[in-house]
Protein backbone atom coordinates (compact mmCIF):
# COMPACT_ATOMS: atom_id res chain seq x y z
CA UNK A 1 0.00 0.00 0.00
CA UNK A 2 1.46 3.34 -1.06
CA UNK A 3 -0.77 5.50 0.99
CA UNK A 4 -0.49 5.99 4.77
CA UNK A 5 -3.18 4.11 6.67
CA UNK A 6 -6.46 5.93 6.89
CA UNK A 7 -6.05 8.29 3.99
CA UNK A 8 -7.01 5.79 1.36
CA UNK A 9 -10.59 4.74 1.88
CA UNK A 10 -12.27 3.06 -0.96
CA UNK A 11 -15.99 3.12 -1.56
CA UNK A 12 -15.94 -0.55 -0.69
CA UNK A 13 -14.53 0.07 2.82
CA UNK A 14 -17.01 2.90 3.24
CA UNK A 15 -19.81 0.58 2.52
CA UNK A 16 -18.52 -2.14 4.86
CA UNK A 17 -18.05 0.26 7.76
CA UNK A 18 -21.43 1.86 7.36
CA UNK A 19 -23.27 -1.42 7.13
CA UNK A 20 -21.50 -2.91 10.17
CA UNK A 21 -22.60 -0.22 12.57
CA UNK A 22 -26.19 0.19 13.64
CA UNK A 23 -26.15 4.00 13.56
CA UNK A 24 -27.84 5.55 10.58
CA UNK A 25 -26.06 8.25 8.62
CA UNK A 26 -27.55 10.78 6.20
CA UNK A 27 -26.27 13.75 4.27
CA UNK A 28 -28.59 16.46 3.02
CA UNK A 29 -28.37 19.80 1.34
CA UNK A 30 -29.24 23.03 3.11
CA UNK A 31 -32.95 22.39 2.63
CA UNK A 32 -32.89 18.88 4.04
CA UNK A 33 -33.16 17.06 0.71
CA UNK A 34 -31.45 13.70 1.11
CA UNK A 35 -28.26 13.41 -0.92
CA UNK A 36 -26.76 10.41 0.85
CA UNK A 37 -28.54 7.55 2.59
CA UNK A 38 -26.60 4.87 4.43
CA UNK A 39 -27.33 1.32 3.30
CA UNK A 40 -28.39 0.06 6.78
CA UNK A 41 -31.21 2.59 7.09
CA UNK A 42 -33.73 -0.20 7.54
CA UNK A 43 -32.23 -1.25 10.89
CA UNK A 44 -33.71 1.74 12.71
CA UNK A 45 -36.38 3.07 10.38
CA UNK A 46 -37.79 -0.09 8.83
CA UNK A 47 -37.81 1.59 5.42
CA UNK A 48 -35.64 0.21 2.63
CA UNK A 49 -32.99 2.36 0.98
CA UNK A 50 -35.30 2.94 -1.97
CA UNK A 51 -38.27 3.87 0.19
CA UNK A 52 -36.18 6.47 2.02
CA UNK A 53 -34.95 7.77 -1.31
CA UNK A 54 -38.57 8.24 -2.27
CA UNK A 55 -39.38 10.14 0.92
CA UNK A 56 -36.82 12.63 -0.29
CA UNK A 57 -36.43 14.92 2.75
CA UNK A 58 -34.81 14.25 6.15
CA UNK A 59 -37.80 15.85 7.92
CA UNK A 60 -39.96 12.93 6.77
CA UNK A 61 -37.72 10.62 8.84
CA UNK A 62 -36.68 12.73 11.82
CA UNK A 63 -39.45 15.30 12.02
CA UNK A 64 -39.23 19.02 11.60
CA UNK A 65 -37.14 21.67 13.26
CA UNK A 66 -34.32 19.41 14.36
CA UNK A 67 -31.73 22.11 13.88
CA UNK A 68 -32.21 25.63 12.65
CA UNK A 69 -29.84 27.03 10.05
CA UNK A 70 -28.87 29.82 12.41
CA UNK A 71 -27.90 27.37 15.18
CA UNK A 72 -25.90 25.28 12.78
CA UNK A 73 -24.09 28.27 11.30
CA UNK A 74 -23.19 29.40 14.78
CA UNK A 75 -22.25 26.11 16.45
CA UNK A 76 -21.26 23.97 13.46
CA UNK A 77 -22.35 20.84 15.33
CA UNK A 78 -25.42 20.08 17.45
CA UNK A 79 -24.93 17.01 19.63
CA UNK A 80 -27.17 14.58 21.49
CA UNK A 81 -30.53 15.81 20.39
CA UNK A 82 -33.07 13.37 21.79
CA UNK A 83 -36.06 12.73 19.57
CA UNK A 84 -38.87 10.21 19.40
CA UNK A 85 -39.69 8.90 15.93
CA UNK A 86 -41.97 6.24 14.50
CA UNK A 87 -40.53 3.59 12.19
CA UNK A 88 -42.35 2.21 9.15
CA UNK A 89 -44.43 -0.16 11.30
CA UNK A 90 -45.40 2.65 13.66
CA UNK A 91 -43.15 1.50 16.49
CA UNK A 92 -41.70 4.24 18.66
CA UNK A 93 -37.92 4.72 18.73
CA UNK A 94 -35.90 7.14 20.80
CA UNK A 95 -32.95 8.48 18.81
CA UNK A 96 -29.88 10.39 19.83
CA UNK A 97 -29.08 12.59 16.86
CA UNK A 98 -25.99 14.60 15.97
CA UNK A 99 -26.26 17.25 13.28
CA UNK A 100 -23.03 18.57 11.82
CA UNK A 101 -22.13 21.06 9.15
CA UNK A 102 -19.84 19.51 6.54
CA UNK A 103 -18.34 20.62 3.31
CA UNK A 104 -18.80 17.82 0.83
CA UNK A 105 -19.61 17.83 -2.85
CA UNK A 106 -22.81 15.84 -2.20
CA UNK A 107 -24.22 18.03 0.60
CA UNK A 108 -23.64 20.30 3.57
CA UNK A 109 -25.30 18.69 6.57
CA UNK A 110 -24.43 15.32 8.13
CA UNK A 111 -26.91 13.50 10.36
CA UNK A 112 -25.98 10.54 12.56
CA UNK A 113 -28.72 8.74 14.43
CA UNK A 114 -28.25 6.29 17.26
CA UNK A 115 -31.17 4.21 18.55
CA UNK A 116 -31.18 4.48 22.35
CA UNK A 117 -34.68 3.09 22.85
CA UNK A 118 -33.61 0.09 24.86
CA UNK A 119 -31.15 2.00 26.96
CA UNK A 120 -33.80 4.61 27.57
CA UNK A 121 -36.42 2.05 28.53
CA UNK A 122 -33.98 0.37 30.89
CA UNK A 123 -33.22 3.74 32.46
CA UNK A 124 -36.88 4.48 32.82
CA UNK A 125 -37.51 1.10 34.35
CA UNK A 126 -34.67 1.59 36.81
CA UNK A 127 -36.03 5.04 37.61
CA UNK A 128 -39.49 3.62 38.16
CA UNK A 129 -38.15 0.88 40.40
CA UNK A 130 -36.25 3.49 42.32
CA UNK A 131 -39.42 5.51 42.81
CA UNK A 132 -41.37 2.45 43.86
CA UNK A 133 -38.73 1.62 46.40
CA UNK A 134 -38.71 5.20 47.66
CA UNK A 135 -42.47 5.02 47.93
CA UNK A 136 -42.31 1.75 49.85
CA UNK A 137 -39.83 3.34 52.17
CA UNK A 138 -42.10 6.34 52.70
CA UNK A 139 -44.99 4.04 53.52
CA UNK A 140 -42.80 2.17 55.95
CA UNK A 141 -41.68 5.43 57.58
CA UNK A 142 -45.29 6.48 57.90
CA UNK A 143 -45.97 3.16 59.59
CA UNK A 144 -43.46 4.12 62.24
CA UNK A 145 -45.22 7.44 62.69
CA UNK A 146 -48.74 6.00 62.59
CA UNK A 147 -49.62 6.20 66.26
CA UNK A 148 -48.51 9.80 66.40
CA UNK A 149 -50.59 10.60 63.36
CA UNK A 150 -53.63 8.87 64.83
CA UNK A 151 -53.26 11.12 67.85
CA UNK A 152 -52.81 14.15 65.62
CA UNK A 153 -56.12 13.33 63.94
CA UNK A 154 -58.02 12.46 67.08
CA UNK A 155 -57.45 15.94 68.52
CA UNK A 156 -59.44 17.89 65.93
CA UNK A 157 -62.00 15.06 65.69
CA UNK A 158 -62.59 15.20 69.45
CA UNK A 159 -62.91 18.97 69.27
CA UNK A 160 -65.39 18.75 66.38
CA UNK A 161 -67.50 16.24 68.29
CA UNK A 162 -67.49 18.38 71.42
CA UNK A 163 -68.38 21.59 69.63
CA UNK A 164 -71.09 19.96 67.54
CA UNK A 165 -72.72 18.35 70.55
CA UNK A 166 -72.48 21.58 72.50
CA UNK A 167 -74.34 23.34 69.69
CA UNK A 168 -76.97 20.62 69.62
CA UNK A 169 -77.50 20.88 73.37
CA UNK A 170 -77.68 24.66 73.23
CA UNK A 171 -80.22 24.65 70.43
CA UNK A 172 -82.35 22.00 72.11
CA UNK A 173 -82.43 23.96 75.34
CA UNK A 174 -83.30 27.11 73.38
CA UNK A 175 -80.17 28.81 74.47
CA UNK A 176 -80.18 32.51 73.71
CA UNK A 177 -76.44 32.52 73.22
CA UNK A 178 -76.62 32.71 69.47
CA UNK A 179 -73.17 34.20 69.20
CA UNK A 180 -71.64 31.33 71.13
CA UNK A 181 -73.35 28.81 68.86
CA UNK A 182 -72.04 30.59 65.77
CA UNK A 183 -68.56 30.69 67.25
CA UNK A 184 -68.68 26.97 68.06
CA UNK A 185 -69.76 26.18 64.52
CA UNK A 186 -66.90 28.27 63.16
CA UNK A 187 -64.61 26.18 65.34
CA UNK A 188 -66.08 23.01 63.86
CA UNK A 189 -65.02 24.29 60.44
CA UNK A 190 -61.56 25.26 61.64
CA UNK A 191 -61.00 21.88 63.21
CA UNK A 192 -62.19 20.06 60.09
CA UNK A 193 -59.60 22.02 58.18
CA UNK A 194 -57.01 21.10 60.76
CA UNK A 195 -57.79 17.40 60.31
CA UNK A 196 -57.87 17.88 56.56
CA UNK A 197 -54.42 19.47 56.62
CA UNK A 198 -53.00 16.45 58.44
CA UNK A 199 -54.46 14.13 55.81
CA UNK A 200 -53.34 16.35 52.95
CA UNK A 201 -49.78 16.38 54.23
CA UNK A 202 -49.88 12.59 54.47
CA UNK A 203 -51.45 12.18 51.08
CA UNK A 204 -48.79 14.30 49.43
CA UNK A 205 -46.02 12.44 51.17
CA UNK A 206 -47.43 9.04 50.29
CA UNK A 207 -48.26 9.86 46.67
CA UNK A 208 -46.97 7.11 44.49
CA UNK A 209 -46.29 9.11 41.38
CA UNK A 210 -43.11 11.00 41.13
CA UNK A 211 -43.80 14.71 41.32
CA UNK A 212 -40.61 15.78 39.62
CA UNK A 213 -38.70 18.94 40.19
CA UNK A 214 -40.37 22.16 41.29
CA UNK A 215 -39.34 25.52 42.63
CA UNK A 216 -39.64 25.49 46.41
CA UNK A 217 -38.45 27.19 49.54
CA UNK A 218 -36.07 24.85 51.34
CA UNK A 219 -37.09 26.22 54.72
CA UNK A 220 -40.75 25.44 53.97
CA UNK A 221 -39.85 21.93 52.86
CA UNK A 222 -37.94 21.43 56.11
CA UNK A 223 -40.89 22.68 58.16
CA UNK A 224 -43.34 20.47 56.28
CA UNK A 225 -41.13 17.46 57.02
CA UNK A 226 -41.01 18.44 60.68
CA UNK A 227 -44.80 18.71 60.76
CA UNK A 228 -44.97 15.10 59.60
CA UNK A 229 -42.88 13.92 62.55
CA UNK A 230 -44.20 16.51 65.04
CA UNK A 231 -46.83 14.23 66.66
CA UNK A 232 -44.21 11.60 67.32
CA UNK A 233 -41.82 14.23 68.68
CA UNK A 234 -44.48 15.60 71.00
CA UNK A 235 -45.30 12.16 72.30
CA UNK A 236 -41.71 11.54 73.14
CA UNK A 237 -41.10 15.01 74.51
CA UNK A 238 -38.48 15.77 71.89
CA UNK A 239 -38.19 19.31 70.59
CA UNK A 240 -37.18 19.87 66.97
CA UNK A 241 -35.34 23.12 66.26
CA UNK A 242 -34.43 24.67 62.93
CA UNK A 243 -31.47 26.99 62.46
CA UNK A 244 -31.17 28.44 58.98
CA UNK A 245 -28.55 30.77 57.63
CA UNK A 246 -29.76 34.05 56.21
CA UNK A 247 -30.63 34.21 52.56
CA UNK A 248 -31.89 30.73 51.74
CA UNK A 249 -33.39 31.37 48.31
CA UNK A 250 -36.03 29.20 46.65
CA UNK A 251 -34.54 26.56 44.40
CA UNK A 252 -35.68 23.89 42.03
CA UNK A 253 -35.75 20.52 43.74
CA UNK A 254 -37.47 17.17 44.03
CA UNK A 255 -39.65 18.30 46.93
CA UNK A 256 -41.03 14.90 47.92
CA UNK A 257 -37.57 13.37 47.64
CA UNK A 258 -35.98 16.00 49.86
CA UNK A 259 -38.86 15.67 52.29
CA UNK A 260 -38.42 11.92 52.38
CA UNK A 261 -34.72 12.30 53.17
CA UNK A 262 -35.54 14.77 55.92
CA UNK A 263 -38.35 12.71 57.46
CA UNK A 264 -36.12 9.69 57.42
CA UNK A 265 -33.27 11.52 59.16
CA UNK A 266 -35.69 13.09 61.66
CA UNK A 267 -37.26 9.73 62.52
CA UNK A 268 -33.81 8.22 63.02
CA UNK A 269 -32.74 11.17 65.14
CA UNK A 270 -35.83 10.94 67.33
CA UNK A 271 -35.37 7.22 67.75
CA UNK A 272 -31.74 7.77 68.71
CA UNK A 273 -32.82 10.32 71.31
CA UNK A 274 -35.60 8.11 72.58
CA UNK A 275 -33.33 5.08 72.85
CA UNK A 276 -30.81 6.97 74.95
CA UNK A 277 -33.61 8.23 77.23
CA UNK A 278 -32.19 11.70 77.38
CA UNK A 279 -34.54 14.05 79.22
CA UNK A 280 -35.74 17.10 77.34
CA UNK A 281 -33.76 16.01 74.31
CA UNK A 282 -33.84 17.84 71.05
CA UNK A 283 -33.16 17.36 67.36
CA UNK A 284 -31.49 20.17 65.45
CA UNK A 285 -31.91 20.85 61.74
CA UNK A 286 -29.37 23.29 60.30
CA UNK A 287 -29.41 24.80 56.85
CA UNK A 288 -26.12 26.24 55.67
CA UNK A 289 -25.43 28.06 52.44
CA UNK A 290 -22.27 26.75 50.83
CA UNK A 291 -22.08 28.45 47.51
CA UNK A 292 -24.56 29.86 45.07
CA UNK A 293 -27.76 27.77 44.99
CA UNK A 294 -26.00 25.12 47.05
CA UNK A 295 -27.05 24.19 50.55
CA UNK A 296 -25.98 21.81 53.24
CA UNK A 297 -28.66 20.39 55.51
CA UNK A 298 -27.55 18.88 58.82
CA UNK A 299 -29.71 16.84 61.19
CA UNK A 300 -28.22 16.29 64.64
CA UNK A 301 -29.50 14.24 67.55
CA UNK A 302 -28.49 13.74 71.15
CA UNK A 303 -28.50 9.96 71.03
CA UNK A 304 -25.74 7.48 71.63
CA UNK A 305 -24.21 7.93 68.17
CA UNK A 306 -23.45 5.31 65.55
CA UNK A 307 -21.30 2.42 66.65
CA UNK A 308 -17.85 2.89 65.08
CA UNK A 309 -17.64 -0.64 63.68
CA UNK A 310 -20.85 -0.27 61.68
CA UNK A 311 -20.43 3.40 60.72
CA UNK A 312 -19.29 2.62 57.19
CA UNK A 313 -22.17 0.22 56.61
CA UNK A 314 -25.11 2.39 57.60
CA UNK A 315 -25.78 3.52 54.03
CA UNK A 316 -25.82 -0.04 52.72
CA UNK A 317 -29.21 -1.35 51.68
CA UNK A 318 -30.82 -3.70 54.19
CA UNK A 319 -28.39 -2.72 56.90
CA UNK A 320 -30.35 -1.81 60.01
CA UNK A 321 -29.86 -1.49 63.73
CA UNK A 322 -33.58 -1.28 64.39
CA UNK A 323 -35.50 -4.34 65.44
CA UNK A 324 -38.27 -3.81 62.92
CA UNK A 325 -36.39 -1.67 60.43
CA UNK A 326 -36.16 -2.50 56.73
CA UNK A 327 -32.71 -1.01 56.42
CA UNK A 328 -33.76 1.01 53.40
CA UNK A 329 -34.14 4.50 54.80
CA UNK A 330 -30.58 5.74 54.65
CA UNK A 331 -29.71 3.85 51.50
CA UNK A 332 -32.69 5.31 49.63
CA UNK A 333 -32.03 8.74 51.07
CA UNK A 334 -28.50 8.69 49.75
CA UNK A 335 -29.71 7.56 46.32
CA UNK A 336 -32.23 10.40 46.23
CA UNK A 337 -29.60 12.94 47.21
CA UNK A 338 -27.01 11.62 44.76
CA UNK A 339 -29.47 11.45 41.88
CA UNK A 340 -29.69 15.22 42.20
CA UNK A 341 -25.95 15.65 42.28
CA UNK A 342 -25.66 16.01 46.04
CA UNK A 343 -23.78 14.06 48.65
CA UNK A 344 -24.85 12.48 51.91
CA UNK A 345 -22.66 11.52 54.81
CA UNK A 346 -22.49 10.85 58.51
CA UNK A 347 -20.48 12.91 60.99
CA UNK A 348 -19.75 11.40 64.37
CA UNK A 349 -19.74 13.81 67.27
CA UNK A 350 -16.99 14.34 69.85
CA UNK A 351 -19.51 14.40 72.64
CA UNK A 352 -22.97 12.94 72.23
CA UNK A 353 -25.11 12.13 69.28
CA UNK A 354 -24.57 12.05 65.57
CA UNK A 355 -25.09 14.34 62.63
CA UNK A 356 -26.30 13.33 59.18
CA UNK A 357 -25.68 15.81 56.39
CA UNK A 358 -26.60 16.18 52.76
CA UNK A 359 -26.02 18.77 50.10
CA UNK A 360 -28.61 20.12 47.77
CA UNK A 361 -28.21 22.00 44.49
CA UNK A 362 -30.63 23.78 42.31
CA UNK A 363 -31.72 20.91 40.06
CA UNK A 364 -31.39 23.00 36.89
CA UNK A 365 -27.68 23.41 37.53
CA UNK A 366 -27.20 19.69 37.85
CA UNK A 367 -29.02 18.84 34.67
Amino acid at each position, binding site marked *: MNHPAGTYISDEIHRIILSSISDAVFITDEDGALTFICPNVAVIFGYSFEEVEELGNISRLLGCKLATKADLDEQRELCNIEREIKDKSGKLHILLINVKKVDLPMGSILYTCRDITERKLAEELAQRRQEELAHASRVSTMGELASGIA*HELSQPLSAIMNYA*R*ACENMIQTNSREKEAIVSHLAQVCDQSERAGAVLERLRKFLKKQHQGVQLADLLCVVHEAIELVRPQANRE*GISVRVVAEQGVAPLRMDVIGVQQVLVNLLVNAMEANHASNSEGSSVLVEIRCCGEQKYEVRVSDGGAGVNADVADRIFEPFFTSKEDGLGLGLSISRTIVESRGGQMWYEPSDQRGSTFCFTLFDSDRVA
Partner: protein
Amino acid sequence: MDMEPVIYVVDDDQAVRSSLQALVQSVGFKSRVYNSAQSFLDDYDGVSPGCVVLDVRMRGISGLDLQEELANKGITLPIIIVTGHGDIPMAVRAMRAGALDFIEKPYRDQELLDRIQQGIEADVRHRKDAAARTIIQERLDNLTAREQDVLNLVMRGMINKQIASELGISLRAVESHRARVMERMQAGSVAELVQMVVIAQPEFAKRILEEKLR
Protein backbone atom coordinates in the same frame (compact mmCIF):
# COMPACT_ATOMS: atom_id res chain seq x y z
CA MET B 1 -71.54 22.55 101.24
CA ASP B 2 -73.89 23.51 98.47
CA MET B 3 -71.22 25.03 96.25
CA GLU B 4 -71.77 24.53 92.56
CA PRO B 5 -69.47 21.84 91.17
CA VAL B 6 -66.82 22.88 88.65
CA ILE B 7 -65.33 20.82 85.83
CA TYR B 8 -61.61 21.47 85.56
CA VAL B 9 -60.40 20.80 82.02
CA VAL B 10 -56.63 20.39 81.75
CA ASP B 11 -55.43 19.95 78.16
CA ASP B 12 -52.60 21.54 76.22
CA ASP B 13 -54.51 21.46 72.94
CA GLN B 14 -56.37 24.74 72.68
CA ALA B 15 -59.16 23.38 70.46
CA VAL B 16 -59.78 20.29 72.57
CA ARG B 17 -59.75 22.39 75.72
CA SER B 18 -62.20 25.01 74.47
CA SER B 19 -64.49 22.46 72.89
CA LEU B 20 -64.68 20.49 76.13
CA GLN B 21 -65.58 23.69 77.91
CA ALA B 22 -68.30 24.37 75.36
CA LEU B 23 -69.64 20.84 75.78
CA VAL B 24 -69.79 20.79 79.58
CA GLN B 25 -71.22 24.31 79.69
CA SER B 26 -73.93 23.33 77.21
CA VAL B 27 -75.24 20.79 79.70
CA GLY B 28 -75.14 23.30 82.50
CA PHE B 29 -71.85 22.66 84.27
CA LYS B 30 -69.53 25.37 85.40
CA SER B 31 -66.05 24.85 84.05
CA ARG B 32 -62.54 26.19 84.14
CA VAL B 33 -59.84 25.39 81.64
CA TYR B 34 -56.09 25.17 82.02
CA ASN B 35 -53.44 24.74 79.37
CA SER B 36 -51.02 22.98 81.68
CA ALA B 37 -50.99 20.86 84.78
CA GLN B 38 -48.92 23.53 86.50
CA SER B 39 -51.43 26.31 85.89
CA PHE B 40 -54.15 24.12 87.33
CA LEU B 41 -52.07 23.33 90.41
CA ASP B 42 -51.34 27.02 90.87
CA ASP B 43 -54.99 27.97 90.61
CA TYR B 44 -56.87 25.23 92.42
CA ASP B 45 -57.87 26.18 95.97
CA GLY B 46 -59.49 22.90 96.95
CA VAL B 47 -62.74 24.62 97.90
CA SER B 48 -65.04 23.97 94.95
CA PRO B 49 -66.27 20.43 94.46
CA GLY B 50 -66.11 18.94 90.98
CA CYS B 51 -63.83 16.77 88.93
CA VAL B 52 -60.83 17.03 86.63
CA VAL B 53 -60.80 16.03 82.97
CA LEU B 54 -57.16 15.51 82.19
CA ASP B 55 -55.26 14.68 79.02
CA VAL B 56 -52.73 12.04 79.90
CA ARG B 57 -50.16 13.30 77.43
CA MET B 58 -49.02 16.82 77.95
CA ARG B 59 -45.82 18.72 77.75
CA GLY B 60 -44.35 19.93 81.03
CA ILE B 61 -45.94 18.10 83.96
CA SER B 62 -47.70 15.12 82.45
CA GLY B 63 -51.18 14.02 83.38
CA LEU B 64 -49.79 11.24 85.51
CA ASP B 65 -47.44 13.58 87.34
CA LEU B 66 -50.33 15.91 88.08
CA GLN B 67 -52.29 13.04 89.52
CA GLU B 68 -49.43 12.20 91.86
CA GLU B 69 -48.95 15.84 92.78
CA LEU B 70 -52.63 16.17 93.73
CA ALA B 71 -52.46 13.00 95.79
CA ASN B 72 -49.38 14.33 97.60
CA LYS B 73 -51.21 17.53 98.41
CA GLY B 74 -54.10 15.51 99.80
CA ILE B 75 -56.45 16.82 97.14
CA THR B 76 -58.96 14.11 96.41
CA LEU B 77 -60.69 15.63 93.41
CA PRO B 78 -61.81 12.78 91.12
CA ILE B 79 -59.77 12.63 87.92
CA ILE B 80 -60.99 11.39 84.56
CA ILE B 81 -58.03 10.61 82.37
CA VAL B 82 -58.43 11.09 78.64
CA THR B 83 -56.02 8.98 76.62
CA GLY B 84 -55.17 8.78 72.98
CA HIS B 85 -55.09 5.55 71.06
CA GLY B 86 -52.64 2.97 72.28
CA ASP B 87 -51.91 4.46 75.66
CA ILE B 88 -53.26 1.56 77.64
CA PRO B 89 -50.15 1.15 79.84
CA MET B 90 -50.47 4.80 80.78
CA ALA B 91 -54.15 4.38 81.54
CA VAL B 92 -53.36 1.41 83.75
CA ARG B 93 -50.82 3.47 85.64
CA ALA B 94 -53.35 6.25 86.02
CA MET B 95 -55.97 3.92 87.42
CA ARG B 96 -53.47 2.46 89.87
CA ALA B 97 -52.60 5.96 90.98
CA GLY B 98 -56.25 6.49 91.82
CA ALA B 99 -57.88 8.00 88.77
CA LEU B 100 -61.65 7.69 88.87
CA ASP B 101 -61.78 6.45 85.31
CA PHE B 102 -60.12 6.73 81.96
CA ILE B 103 -61.71 7.32 78.63
CA GLU B 104 -60.11 6.62 75.29
CA LYS B 105 -60.19 9.04 72.38
CA PRO B 106 -62.21 9.17 70.26
CA TYR B 107 -65.03 8.93 72.80
CA ARG B 108 -68.72 9.69 72.59
CA ASP B 109 -69.62 12.87 74.38
CA GLN B 110 -72.32 11.15 76.43
CA GLU B 111 -69.75 8.70 77.71
CA LEU B 112 -67.62 11.57 78.94
CA LEU B 113 -70.55 13.48 80.42
CA ASP B 114 -71.70 10.35 82.28
CA ARG B 115 -68.28 9.96 83.77
CA ILE B 116 -68.15 13.61 84.70
CA GLN B 117 -71.53 13.22 86.44
CA GLN B 118 -70.21 10.19 88.35
CA GLY B 119 -67.09 12.14 89.21
CA ILE B 120 -69.07 15.01 90.66
CA GLU B 121 -71.29 12.68 92.65
CA ALA B 122 -68.25 10.90 94.01
CA ASP B 123 -66.69 14.18 95.01
CA VAL B 124 -69.87 15.48 96.68
CA ARG B 125 -70.23 12.20 98.59
CA HIS B 126 -66.60 12.28 99.51
CA ARG B 127 -66.82 15.85 100.74
CA LYS B 128 -69.94 15.07 102.83
CA ASP B 129 -68.17 12.13 104.44
CA ALA B 130 -65.14 14.25 105.13
CA ALA B 131 -67.28 16.97 106.68
CA ALA B 132 -69.09 14.42 108.85
CA ARG B 133 -65.78 12.96 109.94
CA THR B 134 -64.52 16.38 110.93
CA ILE B 135 -67.60 17.13 113.05
CA ILE B 136 -67.51 13.77 114.84
CA GLN B 137 -63.79 14.05 115.41
CA GLU B 138 -64.28 17.48 117.01
CA ARG B 139 -66.84 15.98 119.39
CA LEU B 140 -64.52 13.08 120.20
CA ASP B 141 -61.71 15.51 120.93
CA ASN B 142 -63.96 17.30 123.43
CA LEU B 143 -64.32 14.18 125.62
CA THR B 144 -62.28 13.98 128.82
CA ALA B 145 -59.79 11.16 129.23
CA ARG B 146 -62.16 9.27 131.52
CA GLU B 147 -65.07 9.70 129.11
CA GLN B 148 -62.89 8.35 126.30
CA ASP B 149 -62.06 5.32 128.45
CA VAL B 150 -65.76 4.69 128.96
CA LEU B 151 -66.46 5.14 125.24
CA ASN B 152 -63.72 2.61 124.38
CA LEU B 153 -65.31 0.02 126.62
CA VAL B 154 -68.84 0.76 125.39
CA MET B 155 -67.47 0.21 121.89
CA ARG B 156 -66.26 -3.19 123.03
CA GLY B 157 -69.83 -4.05 124.05
CA MET B 158 -69.36 -3.96 127.83
CA ILE B 159 -72.24 -3.19 130.13
CA ASN B 160 -71.89 -0.55 132.86
CA LYS B 161 -71.07 -3.08 135.58
CA GLN B 162 -68.18 -4.49 133.57
CA ILE B 163 -66.91 -1.02 132.76
CA ALA B 164 -66.99 -0.06 136.44
CA SER B 165 -64.97 -3.11 137.35
CA GLU B 166 -62.54 -2.63 134.46
CA LEU B 167 -61.86 1.01 135.31
CA GLY B 168 -62.09 0.53 139.13
CA ILE B 169 -64.72 3.16 139.59
CA SER B 170 -68.27 3.11 140.92
CA LEU B 171 -71.27 2.12 138.85
CA ARG B 172 -72.80 5.52 139.46
CA ALA B 173 -69.66 7.22 138.14
CA VAL B 174 -69.80 5.08 134.96
CA GLU B 175 -73.45 5.97 134.45
CA SER B 176 -72.63 9.63 134.81
CA HIS B 177 -69.65 9.51 132.38
CA ARG B 178 -71.69 7.56 129.91
CA ALA B 179 -74.49 10.08 129.96
CA ARG B 180 -71.91 12.85 129.32
CA VAL B 181 -70.47 10.90 126.40
CA MET B 182 -73.91 10.52 124.81
CA GLU B 183 -74.59 14.18 125.37
CA ARG B 184 -71.28 15.47 124.03
CA MET B 185 -71.39 13.19 121.04
CA GLN B 186 -75.02 14.16 120.43
CA ALA B 187 -75.86 10.48 120.07
CA GLY B 188 -79.48 9.37 120.54
CA SER B 189 -78.62 5.72 121.08
CA VAL B 190 -75.61 3.45 121.51
CA ALA B 191 -76.06 2.30 117.92
CA GLU B 192 -75.73 5.88 116.71
CA LEU B 193 -72.67 6.40 118.88
CA VAL B 194 -70.96 3.33 117.43
CA GLN B 195 -71.78 4.46 113.89
CA MET B 196 -70.16 7.81 114.59
CA VAL B 197 -66.96 6.22 115.81
CA VAL B 198 -66.93 3.90 112.81
CA ILE B 199 -67.16 6.94 110.49
CA ALA B 200 -64.58 9.08 112.27
CA GLN B 201 -62.13 6.39 113.29
CA PRO B 202 -62.65 3.43 111.02
CA GLU B 203 -59.27 1.97 111.95
CA PHE B 204 -60.11 1.97 115.64
CA ALA B 205 -63.50 0.36 115.06
CA LYS B 206 -61.92 -2.26 112.86
CA ARG B 207 -59.28 -3.10 115.46
CA ILE B 208 -61.93 -3.72 118.13
CA LEU B 209 -63.79 -6.05 115.83
CA GLU B 210 -60.63 -7.93 114.95
CA GLU B 211 -59.79 -8.38 118.65
CA LYS B 212 -63.23 -9.88 119.14
CA LEU B 213 -62.87 -12.28 116.24
CA ARG B 214 -59.49 -13.52 117.28
